[in-house]
């Protein structure tokens, strides 16, 4: 069997996921003995635009040109994988979907705002079919590697579907939410990061998206009970996951109910 051809491409995002893959220093040479990387602009020259056996896509889609480009790439890829929060849930830039995008563009480009037409920020599954998701911001390099390994032996890794509290308790971390009154999204966010932030005394930011059947309302009620405002908590949820369908539904409702002064989702026309 010839080695599968792999592409790693990026749309709007910080390119941190691509960097994370390059950061697989101990495994990179072994990886290259298993696959042919034919398209990886961040790392090499002489890139070929397909056909790919697996195409990893980083970043979210913010304008029509990118939409066309992604659709074109999809036709050349047997398997398409979304990597990182932007490609999976819209990422940080999806906050724009909850604001007036004209105001945002004018803040950046002034009078030239019209020269930069945008659409609502989309995770890539709103444009093309996605076969698998690899989470985290930036993408978890070991989960990336696991996906490649599983693909080669003919399978797919499973999302852990556990909340961050699972790994936090297993590591016997101090619970910063209970002990120090810090807003932490651990109870409703997908684990897999080995509770990285809470292990260093920082709250979980929610970069891996919400876990299956996450208890948003309970989470918000609790944080409010501890002294946070509803907009504080929802802002936390929005940070990476603006376009996570589960979170989105909840966020809109929460914001509409609790904070009528903030005109979120004003430009809600697709």
């Amino acid at each position, binding site marked *: 069997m010839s080695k599968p051809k792999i592409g790693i491409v990026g749309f709007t995002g910080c390119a941190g996921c691509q960097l994370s893959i390059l950061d697989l220093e101990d*495994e990179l040479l*072994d*990886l290259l003995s*298993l696959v042919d990387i034919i398209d990886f602009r961040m790392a090499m020259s002489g890139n070929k635009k397909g056909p790919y056996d697996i195409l990893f896509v980083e970043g979210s889609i913010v304008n029509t040109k990118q939409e066309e480009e992604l659709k074109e790439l999809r036709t050349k890829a047997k398997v398409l994988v979304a990597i990182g929060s932007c490609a999976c849930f819209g990422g940080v830039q999806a906050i724009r979907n909850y604001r007036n995008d004209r105001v945002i563009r004018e803040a950046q480009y002034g009078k030239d705002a019209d020269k930069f037409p945008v659409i609502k920020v989309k995770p890539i599954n709103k444009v093309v079919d996605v076969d698998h998701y690899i989470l985290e911001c930036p993408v978890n390099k070991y989960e990336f*590697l*696991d996906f490649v*390994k*599983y693909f*080669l*032996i003919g399978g797919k890794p499973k999302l852990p*579907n*556990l*909340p961050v*509290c*699972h790994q936090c*308790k*297993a*590591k*016997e*971390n*101090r*619970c910063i*939410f*209970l*002990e120090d009154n810090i807003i932490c999204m*651990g*109870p*409703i966010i997908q684990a897999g990061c080995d509770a990285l932030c809470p292990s260093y005394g920082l709250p979980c930011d929610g970069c891996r998206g919400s*876990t*299956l*059947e996450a*208890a948003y309302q*309970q*989470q918000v009620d*609790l944080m409010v009970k501890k002294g946070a405002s509803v907009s504080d908590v929802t802002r936390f949820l929005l940070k990476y996951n603006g376009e996570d369908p589960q979170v989105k539904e909840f966020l809109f409702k929460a914001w509409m109910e609790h904070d009528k002064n903030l005109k979120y989702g004003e430009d809600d026309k697709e």
Partner: protein
Amino acid sequence: MVSKLISRKKIPELVDAMIGDFIVVATTNKNNVPTLTEISSSDEVLFDTELPMISIKKLFHPAKQDLFKFNRTTGVIKSCLEESDIGVEKKIVVFGVRPCDITGNNVLDEIFKEYFRDEFYNTLRERALIIGINCLQPCYENCFCESMNSNDPKSGYDLMLTEIAKDNFIIVPNTDGGKRILRLYPDLFQEPTDEDFEKYVRTLELKKNSFKKDILVEGLPSELEDKFESRAWKKYTKECLFCGSCTFVCPTCYCFNVKDKISIDLKTGIRQREWDSCYYPEFASVAGGHDFRHEKERRFRYRYLHKFIDIPRRYNVEGCVGCGRCITYCPADIDVRDVVEDVRGEM
């Protein structure tokens, strides 16, 4: 009589002496939370502290454990027990274990030793000596060990320290391993006098009066069985975050999930197990995709029914030991006593 007397100021000396001969595990302030860890000096030990966050179960049933290595092409498997340091001669001494944790571990012993013999658990368990410390009064407001009959275990420990009077402890061996420790350090112990024994008996009498029962477990299994569709389950389901913290800090929760990790050569791999929680969505899903507890309410109820009905009926021990950890570490402030009473109280 093999019991000995030891003064309070000699206890750190005992710990330090044991460090030379054993691997000593005690409660320390690692990560700014009471944690059981291997220690290298008695200075690290928190002597008069409440319970460690995770009970001694983690020493015998770790959060993550390698089971065996496999080769996909040759089909050869090799147990990780053979190549780890588990087989080394040095025994582990766990110092300062509270009665509720000893009782909790007796539940795990029952399950992993008697009901189903788990080599991984037993290899670690047989290597450990447990030095308990008697609680003479409830250690904090969430403790309800008396209700669960767990503050006076008859087995599951090797030595038990009981403070009989100001700064003096009676140390009672319960196994040959315990007697061996007493013999190893004769200079640290004194022979107790008749008066000391009287004090010891009196202390144990006083202990009985210091605890009160928060909930009555007599008849609880059948009562809960009759309240299967109680509205109280719904009420608490709405408060619960399903983060699973209570199951990890629980000394008698033992559920685990098994996963394979493939190496980069695609031929070899390792099978691991890690703690799992019945509060998680896919916990009860089986091959073919059916999930026996697909609703949150069922998952919430299940844990209580398992603790208060299944374990007592199947193993004839209480499934809950009343240590109160699940109350302390619940982000949603759910109190197991309230849940049981609410369900019970409903007509």
